[in-house]
């Protein structure tokens, strides 16, 4: 058994040490800040800080990274409600009713219910993580290289098929991500590939440069296009919703937790997808659907609950299979690998102290985020209206410094700038970014497991379909691609990817 109450209690013991509490708190602060600020998302935030945390031990570093991720889910609602600017794509549905409530003078209760719903769903999501992840890891103990290859292949195809109405663009995005990570030396043989004689390219392209370029630099480039308009912020009076408000939202919180958590287990179902689904479901089950879009408080509770439940659920496949479901999870996976930790069933077996400390810290971090977001909401709102001409260059500097500190090579920063330009054009032309990020991070593992599988099977690719678990994954992968193509072929609309959660 990979779960026991003793492990969980030991995890709490580690997470409650002064050092780990401090890093969880720093993570929650940075995460909330990232969530509040438009123009920087959790993926780029974690990627920027990843190289700088190399001085820390793995447990506090990953506790902080995880806190940044779920902290960002809390912060995104603040600007969505107060100024109608969602800090993250997942907060777009929150703005629909949250901003309406703010215009009606009820900004405080909207912010309050957003924080409470985030806390309830986040905590229930972590309860799910506590029991689901070890159970799935137990199942994954039977996996060999062919199963891992098929699982990662399925993960990539699901991300592609769920990336809106752009299946071909999704495939291209994934292939370019793979291409970028193939540059350099073959992981097993050391043979040089696609280096064109360049010594810099021999060292390969670091995935952190790619992610910072695609998210951080490209986002700033999109933002500098527009002249910044003046922002009118609604006044915040009392952030505590009434008991009647809370009672009205209990159903929405629980439903959105279920939707967010179970959808969040699937690769490609990022918070930006699940929040819209939760909002739509809430509107359908409501006795007053006509109030949605005009300041219905459940319209705030549902998406805020869903995005926090999804963020907790994302850790289940990450910890039990080593499979990231969203770009932020891919960056976290990179962080784990940087510390020599291989996520998957062996993580629970070989490093139980680490994995349970991170899970326990998430319970504590959710309480911290609630405390940070209820009384301090006015402060976050003020930070959020820092003018872009000041914020943009500072984001760029942090991104470049973060990229430079990976290997202290200017080459990595040039790569980030190049991928910033690529990311800018991808956004403009409607190419999804998530498949590229996931492919870049997963490529080395994908290639290694493919090589090992072929070695074991003496070169026969039939190993992927003769082993039952692997065959199921391959079948699901083909099914998701065929379904995506079918939908695309029936449509007469051009290929345009939907807004993505970073």
């Amino acid at each position: 058994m990979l779960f026991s109450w003793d492990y969980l209690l030991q995890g709490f013991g580690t997470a409650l040490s002064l050092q780990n509490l401090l890093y969880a708190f720093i993570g929650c602060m940075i995460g909330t800040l990232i969530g509040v600020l438009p123009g920087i998302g959790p993926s780029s935030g974690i990627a920027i800080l990843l190289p700088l945390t190399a001085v820390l031990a793995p447990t506090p570093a990953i506790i902080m990274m995880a806190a940044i991720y779920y902290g960002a889910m809390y912060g995104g609602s603040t600007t969505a409600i107060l100024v109608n600017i969602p800090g993250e794509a997942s907060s777009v549905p929150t703005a629909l009713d949250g901003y309406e409530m703010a215009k009606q003078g009820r900004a405080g209760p909207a912010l309050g219910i957003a924080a409470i719903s985030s806390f309830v769903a986040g905590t229930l999501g972590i309860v799910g993580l506590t029991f689901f992840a070890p159970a799935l890891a137990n199942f994954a103990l039977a996996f060999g290289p062919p199963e891992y290859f098929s699982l990662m292949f399925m993960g990539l195809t699901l991300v592609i098929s769920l990336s809106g109405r752009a299946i071909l663009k999704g495939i291209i995005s994934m292939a370019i991500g793979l291409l970028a990570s193939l540059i350099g030396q073959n992981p097993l043989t050391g043979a040089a590939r696609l280096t064109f004689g360049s010594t810099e390219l021999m060292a390969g392209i670091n995935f952190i440069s790619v992610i910072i370029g695609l998210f951080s630099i490209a986002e700033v480039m999109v933002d500098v296009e527009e002249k910044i308009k003046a922002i009118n912020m609604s006044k915040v009076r009392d952030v505590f919703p009434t008991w009647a408000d809370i009672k009205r939202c209990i159903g929405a919180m629980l439903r959105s937790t279920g939707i967010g958590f179970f959808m969040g287990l699937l690769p490609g179902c990022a918070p930006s997808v699940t929040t819209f689904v939760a909002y739509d479901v809430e509107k359908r089950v409501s006795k007053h659907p006509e109030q949605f879009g005009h300041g219905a408080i459940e319209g705030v509770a549902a998406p805020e609950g869903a995005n926090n439940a999804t963020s907790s659920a994302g850790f289940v496949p990450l910890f039990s299979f080593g499979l990231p479901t969203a770009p932020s999870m891919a960056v976290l996976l990179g962080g784990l690998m940087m510390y020599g930790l291989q996520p998957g069933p062996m993580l629970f077996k070989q490093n139980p102290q680490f994995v349970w400390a991170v899970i326990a810290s998430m319970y504590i971090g959710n309480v911290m985020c609630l405390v940070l977001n209820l009384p301090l909401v006015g402060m976050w709102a003020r930070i959020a209206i820092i003018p872009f001409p000041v914020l943009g260059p500072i984001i760029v500097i942090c991104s470049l410094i973060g990229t430079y500190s990976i290997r202290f090579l200017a080459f990595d920063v040039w790569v980030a700038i190049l991928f910033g330009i690529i990311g800018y054009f991808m956004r403009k032309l409607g190419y999804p970014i998530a498949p590229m990020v996931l492919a870049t991070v997963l490529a080395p593992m994908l290639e290694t497991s493919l090589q090992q599988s072929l070695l074991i099977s003496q070169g026969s690719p039939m190993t992927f379909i003769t082993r039952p678990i692997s065959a199921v994954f391959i079948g699901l992968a083909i099914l998701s691609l065929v379904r995506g193509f079918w939908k695309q072929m029936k449509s007469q609309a051009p290929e345009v990817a939907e807004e993505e959660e970073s």
Partner: protein
Amino acid sequence: MKTQKSADIASGCFLAFLGLVTIFAATKITGGLEERLPPRTLPYVVGVIISISGALLAIRSWRLRGENPPIKWPDRAGTIRVIVTIVSLALYLALMDFIGLPLSTFLYVSFSVWYLGKYRIWYPLLIGFLSGAISYVIFIYLLELTFPVGPFLTR
């Protein structure tokens, strides 16, 4: 590339070409032919996927008869702002090795804040100075990371 259709045709053709270049480059990869998965196999496969998908995208878009939304390109002033941002980033990076991280940060931030915000000159200079000073204190002095310090400062 004003509309989605023309942009998809152009980008599809470009990607089909990029895929062909990848296939050609993969043929130059030597060694390991006796292995189960020779080092050139995956680049080949990826090149084929890119070129076929790019070509399919271009053909599908060319044949498409339906809605054709415009691409939201920036206006002239916006385009200039994007270009200036990229050029100033490149200059920041090129200068960093010679004048060090703090000074190049000061110059980049001061210029960008002034250029994007059109504030009075003291304000961008103040933000630039603070950014340069913080970058020195945190990354060079406290974390002792090996960033270039430049000729005027010491570690």
